[in-house]
């Protein structure tokens, strides 16, 4: 995860490494994009540019894939990404209250990043943990049976 925008040479370097690691072929495009997104927090334009060169496919096609999937971002995000499960089972198990409390504590709405780049708040589709909702995902850590009063404790773990 990262703060703000990425220097263009770093973005290129990471893109190059990831392409080499996966093998620069068309069928590796989604894994490559996911990997860069995980390392840099988002997909900078320079990284997409580099992928296009490495894989020898038009930039338009790289951007077309990068902008389609909800887990990939072409905009810079915060150091930590909080994903709230917005599907029905979580919703009826008290998810609505958690969602309101979360927006209130972070002072963010869905899709926004905090001015200090600490947080990005997003919703996600069903995480399949429906027996233990409401569910939130902070970076790669999953929290089950979340209640509004647990939120400050969870958020405090991430600097």
């Amino acid at each position, binding site marked *: 995860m990262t703060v703000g925008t990425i220097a263009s040479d770093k973005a290129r370097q990471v893109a190059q490494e990831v392409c080499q690691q996966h093998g620069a072929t*068309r*069928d*590796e*495009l*989604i*894994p490559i*994009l*996911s990997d860069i997104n995980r390392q840099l927090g988002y997909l900078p334009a320079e990284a997409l540019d580099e992928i296009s060169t490495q894989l020898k496919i038009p930039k338009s*096609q790289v951007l*077309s*894939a990068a902008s*389609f*999937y*909800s*887990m*990939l971002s072409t905009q810079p995000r915060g150091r930590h990404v909080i994903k709230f499960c917005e*599907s*029905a*089972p979580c919703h*009826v198990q008290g998810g609505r209250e958690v969602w309101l409390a979360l927006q209130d504590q972070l002072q963010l709405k869905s899709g926004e990043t905090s001015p200090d780049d600490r947080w990005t708040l997003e919703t*996600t*589709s*069903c*995480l*399949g*943990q*429906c*027996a*233990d909702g409401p569910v939130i995902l902070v970076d*790669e850590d999953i929290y089950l049976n979340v209640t509004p009063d647990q939120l400050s404790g969870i958020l405090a773990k991430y600097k």
Partner: protein
Amino acid sequence: MAFFRSHILVSVDPVCLEKGAHDIFDTLLDELGKKGLIDEIQVLETSRIGDPETLGPDLMVYPEGVHYVNLTPADIPYMVEEHFLKGRTVDKLLAGESKVAVDEEVAPPKPKEIRIVLRNSLGKIDPLNIEDYIAEDGYAALAKILSEMTPDEVIDTVLKSGLRGRGGAGFPTGKKWQFARNAPGDEKYLICNADEGDPGAFMNRRVLESDPHSVVEGMIIAAYAIGAGQGYVYCRAEYPDAVRTLKVAIEQAREFGLLGQNILGSDFSFELEVRMGAGAFVCGEETALMASIEGQRGQPRPRPPFPAVKGLWGKPTNINNVETYANVAQIILNGADWYASIGTADSKGTKTFALAGDVKNTGLIEVPFGTTLREIVYDIGGGIKNDKALKAIQTGGPMGGCIPASQVDLPVDYKALTEAGSIMGSGGLVVMDEDTCMVDIARFFMDFIQDESCGKCVPCRIGTRRMLEILTRICDGKGEDGDIERLEALCYEVGTASLCGLGQGAPNPVLSTIKHFRDEYEAHIYEKRCPAKTCRALINFVILEDVCTGCTVCARNCPVNAISGERRLAHHIDPDICIRCGICAQVCNYNAIEIQ
């Protein structure tokens, strides 16, 4: 199938064995025999439960989820007497912390269930240890087909079993394999669709996390049948644990010579890889899924050509979902006749469901086709929560439909559900009680569908949005005469002019609720009334004057100061200020607040 009221799982990992787990096992059987409980309680071996160094020998009792640790044979008679005869937990044998570990996703099978796909999902095997799976007849089916059966015989067996695709459409699996086998070309692919995206449905995740080899084995058998050399499991990125387990399973299968070159010494070779999605519901649709594996936007394309003829990279490809593959090895082992003997004339075998909503027992179940909705809701689900009345059952995920309580005796199979205006789908089953507003439900699902429409087909992209607008308007009390007809017309257009299952199924939640609950739509539109008292714009909170004691609790808790009144006198809510948050009704100690 024999039904046991309890299951005892004795850990027999190497450390526990060394510490005498087999003595525990034998003593248990002796003692249960002596007490006459042997037909009621099943004793099974399992891999490690707790840390064997500090807790072994240990065992787990289901359905209670009680974990007894550090056992000696001398403990057993007392434990059997107390726990299984008198129904008392023996505290001194419990593990220190987390005394009771209840599995909230899957309970032990109820009498009306048959577990084929979920047979190993209740902690019976260690998913990270291939030997556990092999001990449960794992890969015996693969050995059988490689040594005794031709690919055509395998396809024949699957055809005869009557197995149909469990991903939603229910196409006969054997026929699909036949198409892929007969398609010209040497290079063929096999895909497992593990992109289980329906909210609330997590059957496939559970199978992948608890019994991944059953899917791997099913895939290898299918690959042999159609002649595929390369396979992919396409798993959604929202399931990181499932991906991890699956990768371990594939690695272990490769080490054991069950994947790779010359499987089990035969001429047959097959490689398997896991591919992760990146968050797109529509990638559960087979052509969109293939586009995603190829590294493109996950957008569907027209069929025909079907994947069996022109699929991944333009080559013949067979796609089935997790549950379909998980059935295959059992069919090979037990025979087509055995499988075909379960279920109805049109739908054979069992189906897993994620039972959710206003029902007492939620979680995963597996029932033979032909089980009625009544049996699922009342016998397995334990009835409606808070003893309210059943209103409707929603099947098939967001693109499914609602079946009214009057049809609760409907047997669950592909044909019956389609005739009732719903679909089988992948296996979501949401039970709704009398307090559910059916217009609001249609709005909720349409919100999901329009959000997940990939945007390729105009009728789906724009039509679902228009439908959502109309439904939202109706729920907000701004419905107009003609809205129902407008919805019906849009449903027809979106359903007939969209390429994939998402657009074609989009009308289901709307059409089925209009069909069965038209009066609720009309009440919203013409009387500006929500019969279920759910839609906030159409309800009023009113204080019953003769019940109210004037305690002022409601007025003090109202966030917008809409409640006025003197202490000890009846209070009043100003409907123009009230935001219908319902807090007053929650805090009132006298039930004086009514929703009108």
